[in-house]
């Protein structure tokens, strides 16, 4: 197959950057999108041109490292699939393919198609964990969990933190990501203990990093490679409101010398 690629090239964070057009030929329909980019890069290296930088790691749809905004859609045209799991048979021979980095003020471009997603790490650091020691393996059913709750928690935990939700959202909102992290912990007894603190801290960190507000367009749900539901966002809003209005206040302990 033959493709015309329009790829965002940008030397570094300070560079202005722009789209550059490349042609690739002899691409097998069964090669993956990244194998196609690998072939382009071989070609560029042979010409003495700097190869295109893009993020990838597992190449099997589980790590959340890959990105790419392909023809107006994060992770390309298929539903429920990461870019690394996309194959060239999903395109027509002769297609022009636009490849851009995730666009969000909180995700600055590092180089070409690679953006800095450490904003997500900061949100996790603000509370996306359980801070008690889990100890040894407990006997089964010492802490009973309703099956529907564990199912919902598991669905939310499928989030790989790739940032496609932010990339697709007209407001560059991170609420699908944050709400899935909040949900998968809040639905389970171990995570419940810190749920009220967690939701407040994660949301305020999300806000302070400059992500937008959800306006319920649900582009995130449509584009999430793990098909995470926006029901999680409603749950986050509920948790947040409950924490804001009803959380027990911490007792202030003052020391006198």
């Amino acid at each position, binding site marked *: 197959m033959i493709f015309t690629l*329009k790829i*965002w090239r940008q030397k570094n964070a300070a560079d202005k950057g722009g*789209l550059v057009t490349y042609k690739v030929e002899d691409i097998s329909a069964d090669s993956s999108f990244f194998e196609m980019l690998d072939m382009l890069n071989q070609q560029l290296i042979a010409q003495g041109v700097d190869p295109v930088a893009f993020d990838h790691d597992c190449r099997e749809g589980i790590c959340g490292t890959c990105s790419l*905004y392909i*023809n*107006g*859609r*994060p992770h390309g*045209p298929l539903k429920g699939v990461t870019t690394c799991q996309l194959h060239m048979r999903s395109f027509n021979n002769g297609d022009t393919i*636009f490849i*851009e980095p995730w*666009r*969000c*003020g*909180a995700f600055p471009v590092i180089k070409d198609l690679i953006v800095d997603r450490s904003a997500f790490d*900061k949100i996790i*650091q*603000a*509370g996306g964990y359980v*801070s*008690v020691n889990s100890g040894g393996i407990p006997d089964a059913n010492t802490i009973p969990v309703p099956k529907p709750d564990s199912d919902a928690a598991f669905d939310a935990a499928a989030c790989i933190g790739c940032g496609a939700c932010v990339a*697709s959202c*007209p*407001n*560059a*909102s991170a*609420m699908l990501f944050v709400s899935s992290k909040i949900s998968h912990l809040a639905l389970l007894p171990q995570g419940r203990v*810190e749920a009220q*603190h967690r939701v*407040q*801290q994660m*949301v*305020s*960190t999300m*806000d*302070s990093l*400059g*992500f*937008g*507000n*959800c*306006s*319920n*367009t*649900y*582009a995130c749900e*449509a*584009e999430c490679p793990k098909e995470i539901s*926006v*029901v999680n*966002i*409603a*749950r986050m*809003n*509920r*948790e*947040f*409101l409950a924490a*804001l209005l009803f959380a027990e206040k*911490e007792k202030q302990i003052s020391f006198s010398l």
Partner: protein
Amino acid sequence: MFFPIETIRIMDSSARTRFSSITSKVIMALAGLFLVTFLLVHLGINLLLLAGDGGQSFTAAAGFMATNPVIRIFEVVLFGGFLLHMVFGLIVTLRNRASRPLRYQHKSRSETSPLSKYMFHSGVVVFVFLILHFIDFYFVKVGLVAPPSGIDRHDFYRRSILLFSDKGYSAIYLVSFLFLGFHLNHAVQAAFQTIGVSHNKYIGTIKVVSILYAIIVAGGFMVIPFWFILVR
């Protein structure tokens, strides 16, 4: 408690100084839902224009709204509701625009409901009509604007008929309500999601109610000029 100092510092420096994203949206949604109930009352009264009794029942209802003390208080709440909704609508929209300083070169192809992306635009159309509506009725009632000759400033019935006999006004009115319909179609379902009332069990019902509400309210208001042009 369990949390490291660093995260508490981040929390302190951000959330305390402004309304959080969720709080802003919830205020907007609650104000919006209040406006949603108000619109039903307003529509009910306006439909009395079609009663064919020379405006008797319409005038009686309008008179009740203008004099009843409870309604008088609610008028202030209503202004507050509009103000809150618009102010937070603006804040939220500005924050949203700022979150993506550099846009994509390729147009988005993500599957979304197109109306949901233009809430600000449809809101602005409604706002422009609201100003017109104020000049035509409220300002006339309180005496800021002189009523057309021969019509008492409290006579909303003849004022309405006069306005609807103007084709230009009717056209502006119809377009405005079409946009209100677009706004409402997304607004009602969005408001429930924002206040956290969403669940796979009844998400479908809320969507259907939202669309029906938008059609009934926008359609109901739009019937009135047609009735004046075609039936009377």
